[in-house]
């Protein structure tokens, strides 16, 4: 038996491939640091130290929650054969749905208001996804194009709502009012202080864990997951087998959109507290695409990838203490995604190898 080549291992084992991409990302980041005349050790040391302390780690967890859930949204869409590039807009309308609910009904008790805000966010996000799905199934409009446009509609809609009297902050800030304390997911102040956690420490991570498990169950264990995956892999065979393809696309984008909307609510009710008038797209939904790619569209992989991404974002904000630009993190993330995305090349190389494998299968048959 021939020894496996490096290429074989990288192309066959997604985990190793992703790990390699991450290492390459940091290597390229190191080159940038070196060129700028900064100490690679100090910068990366700061990055690691800032996320490994208890307080730092609690920050990472807080940062990660919206990334994880947005990542699950995109990963779910990948599994079902649509590319939800509209997670950005669904995130925005979801956050706004939760904000408006909480601002208009501030006095509802916590156990009612929080689920209601979640529901509003999910409905808004799902709606944003389903409109695009209807345009696709009824009118044949390419979903990627309409999603990108819907991201902008969400952006301006959010800015518009943030300026409506009653929603708008009465102070000078260009933002909505703060959400009701009854809609906040923050842990008790005393507890945060005594435990030495980040001031925005909240229990959103529990929701993220729950959603991760739920999405995994839907994809792997239910007939719905079977249907959606069948349509995603081969819609012709799915249709031939009696699955309603259009309904599946609607369902897939509805669920994916709902998740992105929920991610928006988790961000708002966990750390955001209010929605500012945006000057540019904030990029949580786009980050979801990155997280889904790093996590290989596997729900548990996405969970870990979301934590990783959160760590980079939080740790990266500390880099300027070493004189390094925080944008370095974007260089690293960009490089990682680049190397993961060129898995297409790995796969194609593997495809040629697989043809040999195919001969072998045929021989056995």
């Amino acid at each position, binding site marked *: 038996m021939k020894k496996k080549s490096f290429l074989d291992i990288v192309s066959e084992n997604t985990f190793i491939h992703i790990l390699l991409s991450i290492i390459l990302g940091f290597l390229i980041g190191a080159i940038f640091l070196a060129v700028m005349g900064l100490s690679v050790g100090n910068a990366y040391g700061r990055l690691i130290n800032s996320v490994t302390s208890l307080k730092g780690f609690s920050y990472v967890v807080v940062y990660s929650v919206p990334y994880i859930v947005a990542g699950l949204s995109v990963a779910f869409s990948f599994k079902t054969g649509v590319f939800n590039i509209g997670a950005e807009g669904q995130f925005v309308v979801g956050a706004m749905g939760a904000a408006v609910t909480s601002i208009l009904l501030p006095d509802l008790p916590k156990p009612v208001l929080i689920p209601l805000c979640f529901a509003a966010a999910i409905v808004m996000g799902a709606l944003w996804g389903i409109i695009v799905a209807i345009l696709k199934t009824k009118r044949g409009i390419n979903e990627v194009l309409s999603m990108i446009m819907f991201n902008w509609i969400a952006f301006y809609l959010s800015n518009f709502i943030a300026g409506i009297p009653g929603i708008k902050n009465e102070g000078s800030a260009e933002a909505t009012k703060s959400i009701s304390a009854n809609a906040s997911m923050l842990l008790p102040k005393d507890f945060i202080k005594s435990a030495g956690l980040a001031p925005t420490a909240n229990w959103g991570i529990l929701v993220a864990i729950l959603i991760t498990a739920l999405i995994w169950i839907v994809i792997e264990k*239910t007939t719905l997951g079977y249907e959606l995956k069948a349509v995603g892999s081969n819609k012709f065979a799915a249709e031939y087998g009696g699955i309603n393809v259009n309904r599946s696309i609607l369902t897939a984008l509805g669920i994916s959109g709902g998740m992105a909307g929920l991610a928006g609510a988790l961000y708002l009710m966990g750390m955001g507290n209010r929605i500012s008038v945006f000057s540019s797209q904030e990029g949580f939904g786009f980050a979801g695409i990155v997280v889904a790619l790093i996590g290989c569209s596997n729900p548990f992989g996405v969970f870990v990838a979301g934590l990783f991404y959160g760590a980079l974002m939080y740790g990266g904000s500390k880099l300027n203490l070493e004189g390094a630009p925080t944008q370095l993190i974007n260089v690293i993330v960009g490089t990682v995604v680049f190397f993961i995305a060129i898995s297409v090349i790995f796969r194609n190389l593997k495809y040629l190898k697989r043809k040999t494998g195919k001969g072998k299968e045929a021989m056995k048959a």
Partner: protein
Amino acid sequence: MSKEHVDMSVPVIEMRNIVKKFGDFVANDGINLTVHKGEIHAILGENGAGKSTLMNQLYGLLKPTSGDILVNGKKIVMNNPRDAINAGIGMVHQHFMLVQPFTVTENIVLGSEPMKGLTVDMKKARQNVKELSERYGLAIDPDAKIEDISVGMQQRVEILKALYRGADILILDEPTSSLTPQEIVELIQIMHNLTGDGKSIILITHKLKEIKESADFCTIIRMGKYIDTVDVDQVDENDLASMMVGRKVTFQVDKPPIKRGPVVLDVKNLHGVDYRGVEILKGLNLQVHAGEIVGIAGIDGNGQTELVEILTGLRKGTAGEATVNGVSIYNKSPAFGFAHGVSSIPADRQKHGLVLDFSIEDNLILQNYEKDPFARSKILQRDAILKHATQSISDYDIRPGNSEKRPAGTLSGGNQQKVIIAREVQNDKDLLIAVNPTRGLDVGAIEYVHQYIVQQRNKGKAVLLVSFELDEIMSLSDVIDVIFDGKIVSSIPGGQADENELGLLMAGGKPA
């Protein structure tokens, strides 16, 4: 057949003592092949005998473990298909390598596009393609999208693709598997034109008749081993078959006498349009009774594709009626048809029959994933699904064994077909629609598929068989309905059909 066009003094391809191992497994064990200029050389062997492995080495997709490849007398090492193309070797694969949303022209010129400045000169490309298709008599619509055209036309596009790249040595992998008898005659004529022009052709096939009709020499491979190279004129079909499988083969299908029951499928005055919106079904009438096999014989493009698509719910008819056991299935969804007694073996197994990324166990429940015992309260019951797969794999001899969790895409074509047959026969509906069920399968697998189709008939099911293999139609059908120009023009009892008469009717001629 005279061999005057073959220049025996000039070997264009020599493969010497080729050995190819995958791990411990020997796929090719010392194979020799010599092809001369102007020769049609058939390579005969069962599915999995190692034909494709051998050809993939010649086309640069695989490297031999040992042995030499000589092109025009020069030893060369091919690292990839680009090297093979540069050496003048072109290959037409059995499973088409076409970009579905692209047009015929775009597919043919892909990678060698004529340029105008920085842009592709589509006008010139279209012109080139048209000239090429006319020169070799391969009728195509240069502007049609691949996803809209028939399997037969896709095959012609593949052949044109290789010719467009200026191949002198053409490897044709099962080129006739989707062609009608008339088209096969034309293709053989084209092949002879090509060899007359000094080109050489390697023909991978398991159709003995075509070898007899077209090839000069034939190399037989069995279980990876070189058996012999014979002068085709010196052997008959039975000799070739026994050399291929290593035992005597029967071509006859055993069928007990027909026990015809009530009408199951009743199609009345069916009208429909093709992908271009042109009317192609023009008032078709058809009946299939319980316990009989009705074969539809016809040349590709006379409406049989659209007929099947309408009956299986993939296409809407424009007028007419179709009932199964008295229930209208006309212009309903595939799920409705399935629920009311229609199961089918689709023409394109990789497009409609299987989700290639799905495991075999998941493919086996494609229409039943929501039903007990495979799912309860919308939760898939993996144990039941696995058990069903294990049973089906053993009952239907799907190979390799223990393959329940393997993606269907990793199986050979014959075994993919067995997965579909296992599923559809177990669905056990009153009507089975089988479209080209043995396309690309070897003699052994064909025997097997036929056996299952006849078994459904014997169980009192109605079978509608649509096939471009006239032999298949003739050997299986109780009634042969000839389709021409969107109508059934003639209905002949199976036992009384004559190939020439059928061919005439299929071409629109009047019965004698």
